[in-house]
């Protein structure tokens, strides 16, 4: 131990009360589930609670409740009144933000620094932003008398549980839709706490229904004939299955799917900022980020310098207890995800790439993976093509700007990309060439409710955030057979 090592600085978990068992939130009340499954703290495998496994009947009741709420209350309520409910929700979430942050870190494994400073404040901001849209829908861009779509079925992932809930529920409600939300199997707790917020805000019953469960619960929601719109964030594989499932129906869909973002470093990039950006790009949230900068594409002339500085920086990353305020890298969300990361990194070694991780002691219990970088990666390697969804970076090099773009775009995905250069014209040129929905220039992994987020190609359909995200929950009065 050196003189300057950090002492643990644990965030207290006494602020949260976790019940031993949860039901679904249907029609404004918690209702008992028939079957349950455990949700655990991935940093130590402690069972936190028992979560209800939603079946077709639960989905049916939730959809029916949302339909009644849509027809009788929510779609008829003046926008300014709907907006006030959303403002209330935003305010209560702000009041209870520490509680949300601790609960999120417990259930998900992410560092408290991130849940406290990023996830929860952004989730609040999404409600606050969309609250203001509720009485201004005629200016959203779909014509003078926009209408809500009806009941939205929303399925969210485990990487940003509350934030993804906010991305889904806030625009849907602002536009006058009601929702049935299914949280991810491993991270239901903050959604259930959000249900309490809805109660405190006196949100009319049925406007938000939450049914917990696994993939089968999600399928039942997608297939339910009472749903008008599907909003899904998750894997490209499941996204395609949803696209096929709704093909014969009139259901609309927004899909936020996988990514394999390129983070391009030109030889004139500011080295230290750029190394911070690379670290933030791939190690933020354990790399459990669909838009993570998982492919570093660095100009050959500076590759050695960048990679050696990156390795020094990586050796400073603190891996450990998510509730420790000094922690940079928390736990992998589940055993299943850990085995996926392990298998893909093994393929990197088997295919000939060079693997490196700093010395770092990982806790014995729970699911952990050290920050890892692969050099000598070629485009054909699985670690350069497949989404790892973990703290694993693949480094490729380029000589000409054209080659950088070709490598960056050589993937079926197109969610995000990064560009590092001090030259403005080069930044704009690269940004134009990249086939991706979000470009971070001299920065990475920034999010805001006013900023549309979403991908090209197999990264999905539509955008979330800004007026573009809002209009995905609206139709124009004159809309005919548009939007198959």
């Amino acid at each position, binding site marked *: 131990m050196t003189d300057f090592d950090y002492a643990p600085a644990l965030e207290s978990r006494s602020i949260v009360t976790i019940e031993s068992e949860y039901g679904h939130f249907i029609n404004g009340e918690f209702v008992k589930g028939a079957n349950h499954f455990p949700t655990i703290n991935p940093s130590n495998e402690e069972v936190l609670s028992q979560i209800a496994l939603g079946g077709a009947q639960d989905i049916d009741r939730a959809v029916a409740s949302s339909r009644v709420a849509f027809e009788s209350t929510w779609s008829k309520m003046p926008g300014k009144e709907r907006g006030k409910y959303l403002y209330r929700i935003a305010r209560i979430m702000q009041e209870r933000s520490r509680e949300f942050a601790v609960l999120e870190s417990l259930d998900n494994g992410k560092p408290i620094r991130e849940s406290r400073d990023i996830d929860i404040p952004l989730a609040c901001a999404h409600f606050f932003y969309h609250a203001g849209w509720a009485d201004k829908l005629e200016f959203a861009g779909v014509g003078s008398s926009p209408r809500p779509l009806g009941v939205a079925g929303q399925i969210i992932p485990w990487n940003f549980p509350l934030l993804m809930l906010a991305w889904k529920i806030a625009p849907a409600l602002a536009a006058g839709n009601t929702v049935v939300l299914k949280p991810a199997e491993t991270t239901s707790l903050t959604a259930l706490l959000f249900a309490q917020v809805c109660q405190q805000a006196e949100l009319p019953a049925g406007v938000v229904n939450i049914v917990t469960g696994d993939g089968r619960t999600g399928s039942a929601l997608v297939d339910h004939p009472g749903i008008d719109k599907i909003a899904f964030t998750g894997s490209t594989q499941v996204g395609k299955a949803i696209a096929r499932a709704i093909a014969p129906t009139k259901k609309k869909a927004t899909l936020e799917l996988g990514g394999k973002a390129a983070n391009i470093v030109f030889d004139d990039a500011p080295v230290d900022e750029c190394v911070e950006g690379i670290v933030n790009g791939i190690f933020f949230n354990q790399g459990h980020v669909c838009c993570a900068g998982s492919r570093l594409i660095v100009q050959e002339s500076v590759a050695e310098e960048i990679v050696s500085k990156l390795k020094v920086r990586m050796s400073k990353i603190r891996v450990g207890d998510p509730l420790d305020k000094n922690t940079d890298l928390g736990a992998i969300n589940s055993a299943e995800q850990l085995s996926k990361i392990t298998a893909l990194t093994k393929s990197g070694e088997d295919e000939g790439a060079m693997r490196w991780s700093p010395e770092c002691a990982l806790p014995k219990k729970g699911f952990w993976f050290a920050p890892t970088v692969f050099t000598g990666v070629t485009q054909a390697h699985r670690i350069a093509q497949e989404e790892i969804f973990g703290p694993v970076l693949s480094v490729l090099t380029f000589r000409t700007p054209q080659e950088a773009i070709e490598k960056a775009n050589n993937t*079926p995905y197109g969610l995000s990309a990064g560009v590092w250069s001090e030259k403005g014209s080069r*930044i704009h040129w690269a940004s134009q060439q990249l086939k991706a929905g979000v470009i*971070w220039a001299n920065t990475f992994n920034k999010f*805001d409710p006013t*900023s549309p987020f*979403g991908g090209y190609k197999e990264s999905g359909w539509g955008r979330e955030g*800004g007026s*573009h995200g809002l209009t995905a929950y609206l139709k124009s009065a004159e809309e*005919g057979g548009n939007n*198959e």
Partner: protein
Amino acid sequence: MSDRIEVKKTYKLFIGGAFPRSESGRTYEVNDHKGGFLANPALASRKDLRDAVVIARTAHISWAKATAYNRGQILYRIAEMLEGRADQFASEISALDGISIKEALKEVHLSVDRLVWYAGWSDKLSALVGATNPVSGPYFNFSIPEPMGVVGAIATEKNSLLGFIDAIAPIIVSGNSVIVLASERAPLPAMSFAEVLATSDLPPGVCNILTGSKSELAPWFASHMDIDGLDITGVEHDLRADVKVAGAENLKRIHSFADGQSPARILSFMEIKTTWHPIGV
């Protein structure tokens, strides 16, 4: 009238700015509204479609780089070329649809006007759906619409010329390239329109036209992995679910449209790109 024997036109495909026959060597018979023989246009094959996609991909890259002003002028030029040949198109439409020349001329004029309408959109799309976004932090953040890439279109059977213009103009005005399957029943105005395109400074490969069987080719359009979007306005309702299932393999953006001009037809085949950059000294 003299006894002169008329020189009739061979209707072929339009791919990469050239007029090839189908590689399959196949044709099918197109008749006028009374059942009389008109022409043997090509019955395009899956291979013709694949060839066209390769060419369209290359063409899209330079077409998307053209300035919006330039693209607008070229679409306007297409309208000019069509106006000059209005009579020819009117007689083709009249023969196929059994309507009077006067009625047919109305459709031609509507088509010219539609092209002019879409031409004017080229440099206004960013103002319509672009934005600078006031994010909470020291960043300049802006969103702009960009062309999607290569888009397929199955033209409607309803209006052989106007329906065809609706299938191509909104797709190419933003910088996409298109492969369009013309009306199966009445493909002749579309193939004559290729001659208009060929004299309009539209870069070769931006608009590629196939004629043939919808039920045969629509599934290949849908499953092609290098087609980014698909307009299925001309696909019969009972075939649409299958087309959408096939299109899910690369998450193709699949849309159909009601009659009439709309910016939605353009924007449906564009992507919103958002760029962040720090602000600081």
